[in-house]
């Protein structure tokens, strides 16, 4: 992997240009999914992108110490919001993911994804080097990770809970915790999986897993989503059916053509070439992010950057695997393409964080390890 010479560009154009292209392409897809109009999806998509891009530029100005200082308070506030969501939901007599703040619907679980990465990076960044292989490196982190995962899982939002877990696990792995812990956790997880499947998952979640394994058995029920999505992608061919000509999406065969299944909507109209474009753009963005992490000189920045990349990656990978029939249906949208403010906000926070670390790297490129 190449190293970007920091002197060449003030702004990370290598990331910003592909990202903006992807968002614009996403807007085209949403234009078609919206029945050939800017409303209700395409225009808000672009507006949200530019609003959150401004937010990302603002974030870029945050100094490193401020971010490190804010890590634990931010985590605590979001955790309290999660508890609030649970409480409001319990009072309202049903599950709930949003807090109505009057001016917007806030989904605290979305904020928790970058927050967990931040708090773990902060924890390992300040952990004395010698204690990394000890239990002291593990127990606090497990509790930091467990609370939000359980709260989000209770909502129930398995996809987001797993995303939080994945981000945390990547940070822990890169923090240098002994490998045997991961192997042990993996073995234990594999052993626990059947138990969890039957006692933890709700019946509808179990059904999704069964349906994922054999979608053909239930082509008009739960397997319908996966089957229709595969038909949409498969019928696109090399170059697709043409902009605005997707029948699977326009005739409502494809469920959620503007959110979870936006990639299928895109692939039907733009074909394999369109799919490759999206994948290559993601590869460019993630590679840039990864390089930001690798060129960071302190552990906090390293882990924070890598965790953000992992969080974006998790979104992309799970969504694409789902629409292509490689994973069960979990409600995770495709970053920068799917319609949805919460998802755009989370992903732009990740991007903003990466741009911020990139700026730290450029400002103090040769500083040694601090803390």
């Amino acid at each position, binding site marked *: 992997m190449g190293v970007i010479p920091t002197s060449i560009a003030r702004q990370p154009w290598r990331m910003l240009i592909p990202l903006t292209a992807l968002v614009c392409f996403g807007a085209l897809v949403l234009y078609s999914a919206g029945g050939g109009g800017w409303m209700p999806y395409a225009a808000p998509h672009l507006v949200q992108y530019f609003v959150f891009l401004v937010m990302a530029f603002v974030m870029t100005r945050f100094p490193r110490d401020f971010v490190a200082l804010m890590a634990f308070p931010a985590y605590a506030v979001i955790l309290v919001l999660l508890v609030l969501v649970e409480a409001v939901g319990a009072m309202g007599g049903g599950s709930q993911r949003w807090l109505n703040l009057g001016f917007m619907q806030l989904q605290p679980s979305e904020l928790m994804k970058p927050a967990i990465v931040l708090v773990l990076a902060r924890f390992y960044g300040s952990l004395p080097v010698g204690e990394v292989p000890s239990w002291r490196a593990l127990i606090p982190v497990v509790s930091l990770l467990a609370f939000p995962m359980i709260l989000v899982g209770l909502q129930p939002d398995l996809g987001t809970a797993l995303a939080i877990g994945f981000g945390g696990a990547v940070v822990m792995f890169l923090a240098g915790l002994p490998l045997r812990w991961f192997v042990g956790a993996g073995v234990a997880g594999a052993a626990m999986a059947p138990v969890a499947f039957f006692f933890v998952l709700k019946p509808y979640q179990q059904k999704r897993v069964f349906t994922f394994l054999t979608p053909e058995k239930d082509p008009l029920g739960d397997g319908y989503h996966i089957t229709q999505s595969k*038909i949409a992608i498969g019928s696109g061919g090399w170059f697709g059916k043409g902009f605005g000509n997707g029948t699977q999406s326009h*005739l409502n065969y494809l469920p959620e053509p503007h959110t979870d299944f936006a990639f299928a909507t895109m692939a039907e109209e733009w074909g394999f070439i369109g799919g490759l474009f999206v994948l290559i753009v993601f590869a460019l963005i993630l590679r840039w992010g990864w390089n930001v992490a690798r060129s960071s000189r302190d552990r906090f920045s390293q882990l924070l950057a890598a965790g953000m990349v992992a969080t974006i990656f998790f979104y992309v990978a799970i969504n694409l695997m789902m629409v292509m029939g490689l994973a069960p249906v979990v409600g995770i949208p495709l970053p920068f393409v799917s319609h949805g403010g919460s998802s755009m906000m989370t992903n732009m926070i990740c991007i903003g964080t990466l741009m911020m670390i990139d700026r730290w790297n450029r400002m103090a490129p040769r500083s040694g390890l601090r803390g």
Partner: protein
Amino acid sequence: MKLGKNRRKRFTSAATLDASFSRRSFVVAAGMGGIGTLLASRVGYLAVIENKKYSLESESNRVNLSLIPPRRGWILDRNGAPLASNRADFRVDVIPELMTDPQGTITRLGDILELDPTTVADVHQRVADAVGAQPVEVASGLNYDQFAAVGVRLPDLHGVVPQRGFSRYYPTGPSVAHLIGYVGQANAEEYKKDHDPLLITPGFKIGKDGLEKSFEKELRGVPGARRVEVTASGRIVKELETREDVQGQSVKLTIDGPLQDFAARRVGLESGSVAVIDCQTGGILALVSMPAYDPNSFVGGIGRLRWKMLNEDDHIPLLNKSVRGLYPPGSTVKPMATLALQQHGVSPDEHVYCGGGYQLGRRYFRCDAVHGSVDMRTAIEKSCNTYFWTMVHRVGYDVLAPMARTLGLGDEFQLPGTSQRYGTIPTPEWKMRRFHQEWTAADGLNAAIGQGYVLVNPLQLAVMTSRIATGKNLVPSLVYGNKRPVGPSLPFTPEQLQVTHEGMFRVVNGSGTASIARLNLDGIQMAGKTGTAQVRKLVSRGHVGDWKSRDHSLFVCFAPFDNPRYAISVVIEHGTFGSVAAAPIARDVMTYLFDPEKALDTLHKLEQGWGGTPDERMRRRYLAFIGDQGVDDPPPPPPDLDIASRVDAESRVVGMKPGSAEKETPSPSPDASGTPITTA
């Protein structure tokens, strides 16, 4: 794994952590890259390699193909008159999605179509339950006036779709039932055999019996199709294209439709069959089995009660007696026997004395009368058993069975749509095989007069008569223009045939057993032979006992005597003497062939006494029957007189049908659909 090194390290320094980060970040990046590659290949696999499959599935999602049932080919008689046709069937559907005011619209439809309240309530319910663009049927089998009444109000009736389909129509109903068969909806078994989606298309019928079944392939036609683009919820977005159906081929039969109708009606209240064969070609002109069911009443599905009534009838209306009814031929085999005897050296002029019976060993075989001295011709004329016992005993029964076979008895003919029972022409070998018993002389004597083990069907009797009449080996056929080659010539001399013909001539025109059958026509004379077949051994002959134990009445004949054109067999179950029930029917059917007006006069008088045509009588009986069962039954659609008047018995005579003078001229385009008839 290289990362395993960590395990051995007890000390961790900033440098080792840094190195660990480098290694591990490489692993994670490689993992991400791997998943990315996997995803890219998956898109490629779905979109490029499996593209054909998914394009097809996408197309089948998008396009909804609804089949339009093809109009069934007509079944025509030899003159092109329809024995089975189609008539416009008007029905009214509603498409719930397009209805602005379902409640009000359905109520209005109910008023316009005069539907009863239960039907209206049922439609309300089905519309409420309906999803998407699937039409809901409101009423079918409507007449044109009702249909038109809906049509003119259409602008106010949103979502109402008047549909015009076709249903099978048999103008002469019961007269052709056993010959033509009937149509009905395909059942699950038939769909399993042939997975054509057409079979489960609403309104599509397949042949269930008779010619309708055996000519299914020709008659079916090619369905039309309507391709529409639909959303997942079934809403029609736009119409793509519509392909018209192709009507099935017509099948033209050797049957003479009016004759068939006449013969069927002439059977009257009796249970029996009539077969008429064209002596020039072997074509079957009529093949009647009565009583019968009305195939029109089966088209919409066979009602349970209707079926029950037919099943309980002791006249067995569900059996095609003309090819599946087996009867002892009785004396109708005597002309055949005279040919066999002459061939084996018996002089026609040799006399046998009939003293009222024949002594065989210790058994005495009683003749019907004391006939005195009889020769061969007189033996036929008087139906003298003694003569045949004497002669057959002399030459041996062995000579009779081959002759019976030569003339078509015991034979199964290649005729479409009939499943024949071919009966028994007994031989010593047959008896040994069947009963493990030796053939006795008494068996031979019984067989010689068409009793004992001998069983034939009415069609075989007609074939036998046609072959005796012409001396040609006529092969019966049903499909017009598909003339069967005449078989190997029959081994009789004209002189031998002449003797037999003269005997049969005297049966009708001399002092024979069937003088009642004499034709009242100028210059046309008929020859025939009666038969009276015992049903039970011990019952004496004539009008005794209950219907079931009376003798069967048979008559075979041909005319004109000097130049045979038509051969007829009539079998009336339990009709007593051949001359009583069968011969008059044969006479009238033959009369119809030469003078339809005269024959119809006779028929109309008879039908007045019987209480109407078979259709009318059956309808009354059914109403009485369901009345007994305390159920109501909707009336069937009224007959289509325009079509019927082209093929019923009256159609042959202008001005014959009472009160239908204006209907005589058949419309130039007979097909209700306006499609020209193709001739098979």
